[in-house]
């Protein structure tokens, strides 16, 4: 099924082709990670470390104290990657889960690349998918060396050594812990190839193991960027321009500098930085600045004007993303034609931890502490700014207080801002750049505003025979390191994903795209193109079903015959929700949607209740997911619950709007997000058993809820909604 392998493949090697060779980094892919390479990274050489460390590869370290440390190459931002990747190693190592510790990998593209990308980074729901064999092989190699050491010590055959729950044993009664054999195993040759387990022998993969980050996070010991404290560290806040495209002309900082504790005020490309002893002093200093902005090049449009520009643009054909059959001819003979236009606003990610970054610039080195998400790109951008080599950029990747795409900024925006302050000051002192909520919400890098037009031709039986879909919105990838790999023939893959790979069998399909430019910075937002395309496709197909007077599930089934994995989640969600049972009753409604993103298939059924004041509540959401092998079912459930909630938040209230070029929202009072009373009382997650290679779960739960909800409202009221967020009263 060609549509089901598209995304990760297309991201593969993006940096190799675009940024690679000239930048001085080797972006090789280490399939096994089992190299003896001298620059194998993160060996902690401080004196208290035991000397007899067994480190068979870049991912596994076994110490005489019997601890196994798994080095995690991906950012832990809540999605559970510390737990998932550690599970893969522990499985093949036959370790006990309790003895497994995790540690964040340093920035080193040679050792710690995302194998789908050829660069170190986390995104596209790819952590488990790209690491599945690599981490298992890392564990299996370590196990083989422990077994070899035990066999030698006991003078038995390796095949006779049994390994279970962190213990090696032999029928003779001999046994040893991993720790006891660590020193001897370190002297064994690293085997070239080690087989991994048959999935039927898995005893950790597929189990609900407790998350590795839970204890620190429950007991306030987890360290986020916000929490870093270094000797002599100063805190910086930046005053940004009031409009996109405006620049600083001059600033009167005399009042700011009078505040005790304000140490520096410096102009940087993105505004004026106030550098002080602490946050509150820096904030008072920033509030006292009197800037003059040059707004001659600034955007002065409103969201409504942008939308009208887009609508006019949509009158002309766009760049073709897919063209099957002959839509134009088919529409002429269609028994019925239905059309609609859709609107989607800019969206902020609004992570709980606003963007921040700690940087210490020293001669010939720059060290950073933050929730780094695309380490290789950040290294390259920083190296260029600071006239260093990427290897001289040392990144300590910390826990991120959420990201949803934001920290994977292809332009390294907040990271470069922090480095620009350090560069302007030219001190050896660590600088902590902090954004307030208002800074974060108004800094741009939004999910783009989109406008869609869609038209379907139905035959006499009500089935679609032609489908024409036009999308208008900024390209996320134009001008970034991802462009050459993911913008093909003028079509940004992230603008059309979920639309151009329509799973429904419609012989005549035409999808095209306009990618206008605007000075509003845009970026991927959890599930990217699917955030808008899934809404259009799944509400429109629902409308076609009701036009045809057919059941929405049956209608989809008929069109998904060639897509068994879509079909399976659709059927599972419908069954668990009791779809075929009698209607829910007065003032209640039920809606369904199914969508694939990042090679993971999700269907959701939403149930709503209408209230006397025309408001509504979402009572129940049933989720079916097929993500291949379920490495940790509870983490999958958590991502489905949370991903759905994130999408529900945007569906109910997510909107960044511009007026006279200014962002109207600033904080959670005017950019409302989902709170506990709005979370459905019942959220059920069902996982399709599968032996397919695992795919990601961070994003695919997000785009499905908005169309499922809108379809539920249509079911209850007969009204369809063509814009998000939905109105509060229906």
């Amino acid at each position, binding site marked *: 099924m060609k549509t089901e392998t598209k995304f990760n493949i297309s991201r593969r090697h993006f940096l190799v082709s675009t940024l690679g060779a000239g930048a001085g980094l080797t972006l090789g892919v280490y399939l096994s990670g089992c190299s003896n390479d001298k620059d194998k990274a993160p060996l902690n050489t401080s004196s208290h470390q035991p000397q007899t460390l067994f480190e068979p590869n870049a991912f596994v370290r076994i110490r005489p104290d019997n601890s196994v440390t798994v080095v995690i190459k991906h950012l832990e*931002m809540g999605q559970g990657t510390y737990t998932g990747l550690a599970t893969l190693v522990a499985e093949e190592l036959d370790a006990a889960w309790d003895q497994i510790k995790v540690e964040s990998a340093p920035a080193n593209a040679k050792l710690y690349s995302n194998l789908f990308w050829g660069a170190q980074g986390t995104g596209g729901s790819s952590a488990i998918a790209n690491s599945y064999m690599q981490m298992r092989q890392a564990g299996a190699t370590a196990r083989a060396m422990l077994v070899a050491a035990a066999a030698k010590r006991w003078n038995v055959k390796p095949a006779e050594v049994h390994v279970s729950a962190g213990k090696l044993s032999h029928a003779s009664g001999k046994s040893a812990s991993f720790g006891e054999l660590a020193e001897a195993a370190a002297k064994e040759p690293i085997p070239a190839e080690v087989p991994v387990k048959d999935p039927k022998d898995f005893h950790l993969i597929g189990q609900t193991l407790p998350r590795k980050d839970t204890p*620190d996070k429950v007991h306030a010991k987890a*360290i986020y960027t*916000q*929490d870093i404290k270094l000797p002599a560290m100063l805190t910086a806040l930046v005053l940004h321009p009031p409009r996109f495209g405006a620049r600083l002309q001059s600033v009167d900082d005399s009042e700011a500098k009078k505040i005790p504790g304000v140490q520096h005020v410096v102009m940087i490309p993105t505004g004026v930085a106030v550098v002080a002893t602490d946050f509150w002093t820096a904030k008072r200093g920033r509030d006292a600045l009197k800037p003059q902005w040059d707004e001659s090049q600034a955007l002065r449009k409103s969201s409504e004007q942008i939308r009208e520009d887009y609508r006019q643009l949509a009158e002309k054909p766009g760049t073709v993303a897919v063209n099957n059959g002959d839509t134009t001819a088919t529409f002429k003979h269609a028994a019925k034609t239905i059309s609609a236009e859709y609107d989607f606003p800019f969206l902020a990610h609004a*992570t709980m931890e606003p963007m921040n970054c700690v940087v210490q610039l020293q001669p010939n080195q720059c060290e950073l502490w933050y929730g780094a998400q695309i380490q290789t790109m950040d290294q390259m951008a920083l190296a260029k700014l600071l006239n260093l080599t990427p290897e001289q950029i040392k990144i300590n990747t910390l826990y991120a207080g959420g990201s949803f795409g934001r920290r994977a900024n292809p332009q390294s925006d907040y990271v470069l801002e922090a480095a620009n302050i350090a560069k302007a000051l030219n001190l050896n002192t660590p600088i902590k750049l902090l954004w307030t909520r208002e800074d974060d919400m108004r800094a741009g890098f939004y999910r783009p505003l989109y406008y869609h037009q869609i038209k379907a031709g139905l035959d006499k039986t009500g089935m679609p025979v032609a489908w024409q879909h036009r999308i208008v919105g900024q390209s996320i990838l134009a001008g970034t390191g991802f462009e050459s790999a993911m913008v093909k023939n003028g079509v940004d893959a992230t603008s059309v994903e979920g639309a151009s790979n329509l799973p429904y069998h419609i012989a005549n399909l035409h999808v095209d795209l306009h990618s206008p430019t605007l000075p509003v910075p845009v970026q991927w937002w959890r599930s990217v193109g699917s955030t808008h395309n899934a809404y259009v496709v799944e509400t429109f197909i629902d409308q076609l079903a009701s036009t045809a007077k057919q059941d929405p599930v049956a209608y989809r089934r008929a069109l998904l015959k060639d897509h068994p994995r879509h079909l399976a989640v659709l059927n599972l969600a419908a069954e668990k929700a009791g779809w075929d049972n009698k209607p829910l009753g007065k003032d209640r409604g039920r809606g369904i949607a199914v969508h694939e993103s990042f090679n993971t298939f999700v269907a959701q059924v939403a149930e709503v209740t209408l209230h006397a004041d025309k408001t509504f509540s979402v009572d129940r959401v049933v989720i079916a997911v097929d993500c291949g092998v379920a490495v940790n079912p509870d983490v999958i459930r958590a991502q489905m619950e949370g991903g759905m909630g994130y999408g529900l938040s945007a569906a109910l209230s997510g909107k960044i709007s511009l007026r006279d070029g200014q962002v109207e929202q600033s904080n959670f009072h005017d950019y409302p997000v989902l*709170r*506990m*009373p709005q979370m459905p009382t019942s959220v059920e997650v069902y996982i399709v058993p599968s032996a397919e290679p695992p795919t990601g779960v961070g994003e695919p739960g997000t785009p499905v809820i908005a169309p499922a909800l809108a379809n539920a409202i249509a079911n209850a009221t007969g009204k369809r909604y063509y814009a998000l967020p939905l109105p509060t009263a229906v």
Partner: protein
Amino acid sequence: MITLTINGTAHPLDIDPATPLLWALRDTVGLTGTKFGCGIAQCGACTVHLDGNAIRSCITPVSAAQGKAITTIEGVNTPVAQAVQIAWTQLDVVQCGYCQSGQMMSAIDLLNKNKQPSDDQIDTAMAGNICRCNTYVRIRAAIKAAARALA
């Protein structure tokens, strides 16, 4: 000089009396478990207890906290707090974890005042705490589990 009593220890601090308690805790005293999320009492990430009541430390000036008992996530140790932390652990509530100190401080405050809260009472009491990972289903379940454990 302002003296704050934090987790039972007196801290004399040389800071502006208008400084929000949040920043005194984080930047001056060095207790970083209490988080900054919004600065305007909209998200609850900064929730601490003042004389046993949950407050938003981002809008509470240190002058208003002087002479009162301040408890942060680092200092909670009552049976209720322990039950909450155990329930949070057993249900693997956390995702990114950034809001969870505030969530637990609000949950402890709720259970201190209402031993067996109803579903609606839980939703109402927790409505001021935002979780962008949307762990709400598990927070609800953890509060109920903690209440059961304490019963």
